[in-house]
């Protein structure tokens, strides 16, 4: 009962954050746009106007479900490891290598490429974790630096080994047709990637909530000292969680690549890792809410994209929403009074019914 009411406060805070951010953006649109009403309507309802656009929303969900899960996993152990951005990128580089290096039977090849991607991603996020555990180096700083290392090494690998000279940009060769994920809904680009993403959501939920490993990770994240005194090998738990978090991000890189592209063509970090931070916060670091939170961001993105094509509002306005949502959802002071009143009321009720003495 009490738990439900407190969860209600969390949901309310999420709603407050999202509404505030959207109102801020509407005010900006009203201030600067020449056609504010059509901009707002495109933004809010544009994504629903055709099957293709609904498809766009679902397609946009796929990479951020992976990075959202990744951040959830990374953060559960109490580390601010931000190298999921690099892990996602290196994942797609490794997937490119897996797709172009071997000539295996179709299904096996795609699995090998995805394994490559997951391992490469896991390797990336393990580095800040290892430095944290062994040297006590601040994972925030090392992981931020590592993202740039990933970017340049990734681009080096692509341009040195897989560069297609017939293209003007630094693109890789085309992937074999058999590597591309199958489209599952006609008229859209929705592909089997969304299925893999949902499977990962379920696996992550199981891992975090139904295994002793998940319990240990959460314990280490909540109270490292207590976890150590209760005999846990905190270093191994941290390393394990960071490895898995990176593997999810790396796999996401592969899925996005084979689902939406025909060759490697990133020239910079795609930013899905940072999106993952927003996804994980809105989902309150719970795997089961990640798809919902990804739907929210993907819908806003698609709306903003439609708006930017038909009106004078640039797509980047979406980042203002992202920033406000991150700040307000993590703002503990908002609705604090309400939360306290709820707790006091609850305690009084329990007191009156005598439940407290019984327990």
């Amino acid at each position: 009962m009490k738990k439900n009411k407190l969860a209600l406060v969390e949901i309310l805070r999420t709603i407050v954050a999202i509404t505030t951010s959207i109102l801020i953006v509407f005010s900006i649109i009203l201030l600067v746009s020449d056609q504010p009403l059509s901009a707002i309507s495109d933004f809010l309802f544009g994504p629903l106007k055709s099957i293709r656009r609904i498809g766009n929303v679902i397609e946009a969900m796929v990479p951020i479900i992976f990075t959202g899960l990744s951040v959830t996993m990374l953060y559960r152990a109490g580390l601010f490891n931000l190298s999921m951005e690099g892990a996602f990128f290196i994942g797609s580089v490794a997937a490119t290598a897996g797709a172009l290096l071997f000539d295996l039977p179709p299904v096996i090849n795609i699995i090998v490429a995805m394994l490559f991607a997951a391992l490469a991603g896991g390797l990336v996020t393990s580095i800040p974790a290892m430095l944290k555990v062994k040297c006590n180096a601040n994972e925030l700083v090392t992981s931020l630096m590592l993202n740039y290392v990933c970017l340049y090494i990734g681009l080096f690998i692509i341009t040195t080994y897989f560069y297609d000279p017939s293209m003007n940009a630094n693109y890789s060769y085309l992937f074999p047709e058999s590597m591309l994920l199958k489209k599952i809904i006609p008229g859209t680009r929705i592909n089997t990637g969304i299925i893999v993403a949902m499977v990962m959501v379920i696996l992550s939920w199981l891992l975090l909530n139904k295994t002793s490993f998940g319990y240990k990770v959460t314990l280490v994240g909540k109270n490292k000292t207590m976890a150590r005194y209760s005999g846990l090998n905190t270093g191994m738990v941290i390393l394990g969680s960071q490895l898995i978090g990176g593997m999810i991000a790396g796999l996401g890189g592969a899925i996005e690549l084979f689902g939406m592209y025909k060759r490697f063509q990133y020239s910079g970090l795609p930013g899905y890792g940072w999106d993952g931070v927003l996804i994980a916060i809105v989902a309150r670091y719970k795997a089961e809410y990640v798809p919902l939170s990804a739907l929210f961001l993907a819908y806003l993105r698609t709306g903003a994209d439609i708006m930017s094509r038909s009106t004078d509002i640039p797509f980047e306005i979406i980042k203002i929403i992202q920033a406000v949502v991150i700040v307000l959802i993590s703002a503990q002071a908002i609705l604090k009074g309400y939360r306290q009143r709820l707790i006091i009321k609850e305690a009084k009720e329990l007191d009156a019914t005598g439940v407290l003495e019984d327990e």
Partner: protein
Amino acid sequence: MNNVLDLIFSTDFLFTTIRVMTPILFAALACMIFTKGGIDSIGTEGIMLMCSLAGVLGSHYTQNPFLGMLTAVIVGSLLACLFGYVTLSLKSEPVLAGIALNTLASGLTIFIIYYVTGEKGSTQSLMSPTLPNIHIPLLKDMPILGSILSGHNFITYLGLLLTVVLALFIYKTPTGLRIRSVGENPDAAKSIGIKVYKYKYIALIIAGALAGLGGSFMSMGYVSFFSKEMVAGRGFIGMAAESMGRGTPIGVLLSSLLFGAADSLAIRLQMLNLPVQLIQTIPYVVTIIAIAIYSYSRTEKKISK
């Protein structure tokens, strides 16, 4: 091989080192003040980016680069205060609030230049005066030293001067002392009657101004326009330089110099037809290794105590 050494150990190399060190030095000084005041510094990146744009716009509309720089300083301080309000009053998780600030900066800067210039990439079409390079009398005529130390941008010299001023400020003035006490132990500071929020906000304003100066160097000294994402991780490197410099002004200066040297080495080696992308990783790899070694040695010391 001689060729390589010649390229590296030339006056040109050292000159470039000081030049590319400048934004990192400001970022690191900003991070230093943030950290002294017990405030998370991950938002430095975003503040610098916003200030790069603020500087160019201020300089364009007033046609005076110093007023542009002042605009950047004011915007930097205001953004830092906003960060302070969000983390101190709204009690947002500081790292997340910093990430939000960086996200906001990367979106809002593009949004603004789109409205000012009609383009999304840069402000090259705007006429914005840049800050002057300064040739120091006497020094500029000295052999070797002159070509290394003279002729830098106004902000570079300002940065070196501010390093000294900040050293005096944080160690020798009551305000500096209080900022440190508030950062180290806010409860203890409060118990002896120090107004915690007041000194946090003083730290925020100073750090924001420093980040603002660093940002304005990017768009009004390093190059003469704003382009999107132009800070490119220098705020993050500043965090690294701060932690490697152990939070002391001299340490911060030396580690900024190291990052400057790594950066400038990368620029040099590119001329030798070495793989560009691998060379670009040098400053970041150096940072990671340096932080790992420094953190390791610090942990060892703690244990041996």
